[in-house]
């Protein structure tokens, strides 16, 4: 591959011209200057570059015409996003419903405690009721705490929604002119949604436990 600087410049120019013509929908054959250059140089390298350029273009054209991709970008992606958002909403509603019931049961538990307190000190029922009320209070706390799953799973699902959005935007961009015919309308630029944060820990991921975090913070004087 020892093309002279002059050959190199001429080749680059010829390839640029060819690419521009291919992109504007012109003939797929190599333009005369490039054909000449290819004839002049027996070098297999040039032929390979030319062949790769042609194949790349053909591949892009094939992709653009792929109706499946159009369907995925137009319907599949928005549908996936809607379903995921629906899951987040449903778990949120379920968690709030549970927390509502926890709140109501806390009121009931306090009523039991007040009732028990009104009994004589030596009444064995008093101690029993107070004990049960305390156990219930503790379990209600645990029940409330267990609703934490909604935040964690919600965060994970929201990250996937962002990914779906990115793939959709990339597909619409790739589909180019066809995008105008899609239900979702105009192409969107790929949003820079990366926060640089890892998000909730996933199974198999190496993360820090609360104990590790405590040790690390202590070493930093917190």
């Amino acid at each position, binding site marked *: 591959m020892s093309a002279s600087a002059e050959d190199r410049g001429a080749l680059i120019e010829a390839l640029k011209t060819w690419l521009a013509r291919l992109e504007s929908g012109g003939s797929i054959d190599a333009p005369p200057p490039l054909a000449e250059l290819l004839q002049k140089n027996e070098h297999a390298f040039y032929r390979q570059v030319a062949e790769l350029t042609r194949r790349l273009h053909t591949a892009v054209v094939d992709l653009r015409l792929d109706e499946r991709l159009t369907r995925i970008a137009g319907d599949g992606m928005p549908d996936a996003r809607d379903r995921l958002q629906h899951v987040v909403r449903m778990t949120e509603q379920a968690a709030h419903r549970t927390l509502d019931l926890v709140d109501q049961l806390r009121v009931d538990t306090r009523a039991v405690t007040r009732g028990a307190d009104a009994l004589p000190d030596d009444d064995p029922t008093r101690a029993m009721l107070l004990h049960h009320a305390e156990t219930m209070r503790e379990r209600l706390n645990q029940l409330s*705490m267990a609703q*934490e799953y*909604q*935040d964690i799973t919600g965060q994970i699902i929201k990250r996937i929604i962002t990914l779906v959005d990115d793939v959709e935007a990339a597909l619409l961009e790739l589909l180019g002119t066809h995008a105008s015919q899609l239900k979702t309308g105009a192409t969107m630029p790929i949003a820079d949604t990366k926060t640089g944060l890892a998000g909730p820990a996933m199974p198999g991921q190496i*993360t820090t436990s609360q104990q590790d975090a405590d040790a690390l*913070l202590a070493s930093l004087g917190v």
Partner: protein
Amino acid sequence: MMDKNMKILVVDDFSTMRRIVRNLLGDLGYTNIAEADDGKSAWPMLQGGGFDFVVTDWNMPGMTGIELLRTIRGDERIGKTPVLMVTAEAQREQIIEAAQAGVNGYIIKPFNAATLKEKIDKIFQRIAETA
């Protein structure tokens, strides 16, 4: 030791989590609690004054918890307000970043009531020691 009437701001974009933290704090005896759904809405509330303690998530739209922490630390009036971060971010780098930004405590989600109590106790014990 700790003033159960102290005014606490709970900042999280998930309403479920705000409610859980509020419930836990309530069970610990703290009832003077306000909520904000991200740093952007928390900041004017904090500037309004009167908050003794901030419990914040990290990853939120608008203004994140770490940005809120830095904004608080950069403010002359409320710069010393203790901040407890409660977040699913469990990477070493994040914990170091929070420590360097001046966080007073760091809890990794999922967490439990005992951890929350322990961290709050520790934060105010330290403040009492250095006061």
